[in-house]
């Protein structure tokens, strides 16, 4: 089945939802979810870039001849990006835990010691 440009549309939607969440939500955990959504959108975009309709996994050993392979590079990029995303999400969430410990809230409107 040819899925056409559907993955790119979904990726754009994910990025848009993520940025909306990041800009308009007041809860720190929701901000992290927003960042995470943008990240997922970008990862989906990268994977979709390398997708070929009815392509096979890009492994040369025992590969059937005359079959199209999906591109390996975007998959490598996506894997790297997922690992980095894990690190940043973990760091963000641990900051959120400590903010809750210090301020007793996760509301961005109340976490405002640094301003001006």
């Amino acid at each position, binding site marked *: 089945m040819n899925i056409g440009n559907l993955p790119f549309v979904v990726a754009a939607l994910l990025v848009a939802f993520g940025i909306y969440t990041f800009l308009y939500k007041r809860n720190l955990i929701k901000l*992290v979810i927003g*960042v995470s959504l943008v990240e997922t959108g970008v990862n989906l975009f990268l994977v979709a870039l390398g997708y070929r309709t009815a392509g096979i996994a890009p492994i040369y050993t025992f590969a059937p001849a005359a079959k199209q392979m999906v591109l390996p590079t975007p998959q490598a990029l996506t894997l790297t990006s997922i690992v*980095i995303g894990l690190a940043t999400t973990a*760091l963000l969430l641990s900051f959120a835990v400590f903010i809750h410990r210090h301020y007793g809230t996760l509301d961005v409107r109340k*976490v405002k010691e*640094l301003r001006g």
Partner: protein
Amino acid sequence: MTALTQHAPVLLIAIPLLGAFGVPLIGKLGRGARNTFVGLIALLTAAFAGLLAASVFGAAGAPSLYVLGGNGFGVPLPSGMSIPIRIILETDGMSAFMALITALITLTGAFFSFSYWKDRSGGTLYYSLLMLLTAGIFGMELTGDMFNFFVFLEVTSIAACGLIGFRVWLKTSQEAGFKVMALYTLSGLFVLLAVGLLYGQYGGLNIAYLASALTGSTIDVVALGLLLAGLALKAGAVPLHMWAPDAYGEAPAPMSAVLVANSQASLYGLFRILFTLFGLTISVAALGWILIVLALLTIFVGVTMALIQNDIKRLIAYGAVSQIGYMLLGVGVGLAVSVAKPDYGFVAMQGGIFHMFNDAACIGLLFLASGVIVRATGTRDLNQMGGLAHSMKWTSVLFLIGAFALAGVPPFNGFASKFLIYEASFKLSPFLAVVAVLSSILLLAVFVKVFQAAFLGARRDGLPAEVPIGMMVPMVALALVVIVFGLFPGFFVDKIVTPAANALWYGRDAYIGLVLGGG
């Protein structure tokens, strides 16, 4: 020696990376062993940066290639291979110039910390993150590949936010850490999205290959917009600066200086992308004016926000933000006229690039001095300090040198580079020079206020003693750099700034040809 010089680019990344993971292990042996190890790694890294700079500037800034995983490390792509896929590091005058800045700041930061962080906990974490940040910054400056640039960008983001927030017992450091990390992550994702857009069109990630293939299509322009937004955010240009005062203000003082070097590395990435990756395939005049507008906003907002601060570190942080504006102004003027390439455009580029070095030295000195002040008085509030000059004579002189250099007072180094920027931007439009000069004068007023509040005033009881020699030596070293670069600017402009400016202004074809031409 030649073998070491040839391998310098990869060693500059590998040695601090080894240090980052070695510090927790060596730290088990005790603080002395750990500090010796960190000192050795920092010295070794700085030595390799020096070697790299000596070889690159010895060849007048011509680009050189380092290929990982090939038959020979200097061999370009084998003939017949149409898409460059190897990991390459490409160093030219600009990268070597940035490597020098990073080496200077991380070396002085590390040595200052030995004494500064002596009786505090969390030292192992601190040095480990510092080494990781160093490796990331060098990676950003030396890589010849867009995706690796993104990876190193994220390495610096994570390490930088670790340094801002590793003191989990401090309320404000956690707030700053969260804010900075969220914005850094978004900026990194913008860059990654742009990398994806470029890959989707041209099927490559190598900067030289992409530069040769770029057509200036709409998608390229979208990618450029994303890169500009992402890197301007990471560099702390107004209106995307809101994280910068928090980051510089809440990090330990020597690390604030390293964070400024990190912001400069993002700025380097932006310049590399504008000049080398895109070059003249896009409308550079319009882009140059965008940079100039960003620069004027950054200068103006940075200085006026510094004016109203009462927290010494936040005040210096806003000073640091405003200096990013001067670099953008110089290079923006250069970019705006880079089609016709008049002489003053090149002077503007020299000024902007030279200012990166000068800013790193004097803002580094100021952050180190602010660390001394905060440590001695136990407060960051300017209203509660005073009279420090009675007991801390050397620190007050060093602070004054840093402040004068930052405000562009002759004969210090800030004047040398700012003068080039004023002169060249005046030729483009007098208005630019007026804003730049006025902001410098305001900045001088700001730092006179700080000096008066912290150092002058009546002798008080219990004034802290002069700082130990371990903190004094790095500050004096930076002050010497500030003075020497201010007294002999012509020498340094000829030797290191001109090759760096040349690499951006004329070096695009050489940069591309080195990777693709040998095949």
